[in-house]
């Protein structure tokens, strides 16, 4: 029994997959706290799809995939900002138009040279077959993101909470805006490797959203989100060995399960707690 349970750990590729997933899961979860509070979930979805053409081009040219992805991600973000400022369209329409345009271009580019880039690994992730050079890129992105978040989380939190106050204090809100946007693009690129373009947004939203249901304190929210993001990634990657299923799907399913649990059983904002409170209020009134 124990022998069976330990089998995945005998394989080098499994150990790598579990380690990299855990790192990405933790970093994404950290950032997800800011994304959910800023209301950028849709933006996260858009950026994670917009990086696809960049990945494709980078592979053709033999460049690091992160560089290409990063460029198209930021292009999409700037494009969305431009279209929104110059037209009367609402933001959701702008995001919808721009990110599908980028994603479509990416799919088209990949389909032109199917032998060089594997469409499946970009859209659905391929953590089990990750190359060492890709791991290095992910390590660099994760380290950079953690350093920036660790040093400037208070400024970013203030920017999410009350941008006007950030301005009144003389902080440069444009820089903060683009810092957050850059971190979002960078982690979207890293997460692409683990869960694929389609599920990146889950890694960048779900842990933060779940933690938000469980606490009213930002510090605890970060702790909970990072713990959940890391654990689900480890367990998901490990379990996917036995199911022989999609690693990304496994991780995100676990995260979603935790979200549902928090939604129902959360002590403060959960559905059961709310019902109990309503009952108590009803009895108090009667």
């Amino acid at each position, binding site marked *: 029994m124990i022998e069976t349970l330990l089998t995945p750990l005998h394989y080098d590729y499994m150990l790598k997959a579990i380690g990299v997933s855990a790192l990405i899961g933790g970093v994404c979860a950290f950032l997800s706290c800011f994304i959910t509070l800023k209301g950028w979930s849709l933006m996260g979805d858009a950026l994670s799809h917009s990086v696809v053409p960049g990945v494709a081009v980078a592979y053709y040219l033999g460049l690091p995939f992160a560089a290409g992805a990063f460029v198209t991600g930021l292009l999409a973000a700037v494009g969305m900002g431009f279209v929104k400022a110059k037209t009367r369209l609402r933001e959701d329409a702008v995001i919808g138009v721009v990110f599908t345009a980028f994603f479509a271009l990416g799919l088209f580019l990949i389909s032109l040279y199917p032998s060089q880039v594997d469409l499946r690994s970009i859209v659905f992730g391929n953590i089990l077959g990750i190359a060492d050079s890709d791991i290095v890129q992910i390590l660099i992105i994760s380290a950079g993101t953690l350093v920036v978040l660790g040093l400037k989380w208070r*400024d970013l939190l203030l920017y999410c909470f009350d941008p006007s106050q950030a301005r*009144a204090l003389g902080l440069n809100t444009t820089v903060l805006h683009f810092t957050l946007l850059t971190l979002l693009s960078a982690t979207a690129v890293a997460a692409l490797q683990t869960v694929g373009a389609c599920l990146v947004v889950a890694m960048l939203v779900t842990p933060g959203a779940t933690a938000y249901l469980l606490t009213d*304190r*930002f510090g605890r929210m970060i702790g909970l989100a990072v713990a959940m993001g890391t654990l689900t990634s480890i367990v998901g990657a490990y379990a996917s060995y036995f199911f022989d299923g999609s690693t990304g799907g496994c991780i995100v399913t676990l995260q979603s399960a935790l979200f549902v649990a928090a939604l129902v059983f959360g002590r403060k904002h959960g559905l059961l707690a709310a019902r109990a409170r309503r009952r108590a209020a009803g009895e108090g009134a009667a």
Partner: protein
Amino acid sequence: MIAALPDCSVDVGGVTVSYANGHVALRDASFQLGPGSICALVGINGSGKSTLFKAIMGIVEPVAGAVRIGGRPVRAALRENLVAYVPQAEEVDWSFPVSVWDVVLMGRYGYMNFLRIPRAEDRRIAEESLRRVGMLEFRDRQIGELSGGQRKRVFLARALAQQGRVILLDEPFTGVDVTTEAAIIALLRELRADGHIMLVSTHNLGSVPEFCDHVVLVNRTVLAAGPTLEVFTEQNLQRAFGGALRHFRFDESTVQQHDGRAVTLLTDDERPLVFGKGGHLEYSKREGREDVVEKRAEHEGDK
């Protein structure tokens, strides 16, 4: 709280602000305020009140003219923490996971180092600010768990903690009970005595003469600015509000036994509710209410 700080001033000179879509929100707006002043910013929605605030906070850049605070350009003034801001209740996400203490400490960010780690001095001032607005015992509450008046006081404490010389207050009395309103006004008066300049955007016309010594009337530009007694006149308010003001003229109303001289009640977005001397509801127009007028006349006759 703060002693011997240099005098401050707000100088808005010929400011024109237009947005990317070409809409000119404010044209050639000018006014000056000296130290120790509570100034009401009065105008209808969309008159440019919030644009004026944004210009003073450097959020929008005027296409013409300039704002100077204490003789400095806005950017320099912000770096020196001269400008503090108390947001409108609707602008704040009350479910945000921050405590009262977190919010007040945000007022101190400008004084903290790169990592924004509060020093003992920052904590002392934050604590003092909370005590001054009577919210110290609520320091560990999440901001959404507070009442409307308490919420307002927390953000006032943040402005105090920032020790800005110019405090902008956006609709500070909306959703606030009468006791808190009185407490806020008392605090503003103390701050005025310390030499602060407070710019209060408000719909609450009735309270303006009560506590504001200066008034700026805006409608796409500054229509009039100066001491309340000179500027806050019926004629000027008519110009600022146009048809948007609601009137209650006693000589046209169902109220009886007024002495014939017209008293005009002005209010901005709410209709005034007026009860007569006998506690009856009164209406602003006599037409169609002849029965009410008769009853009031009888009532007066009884006495």
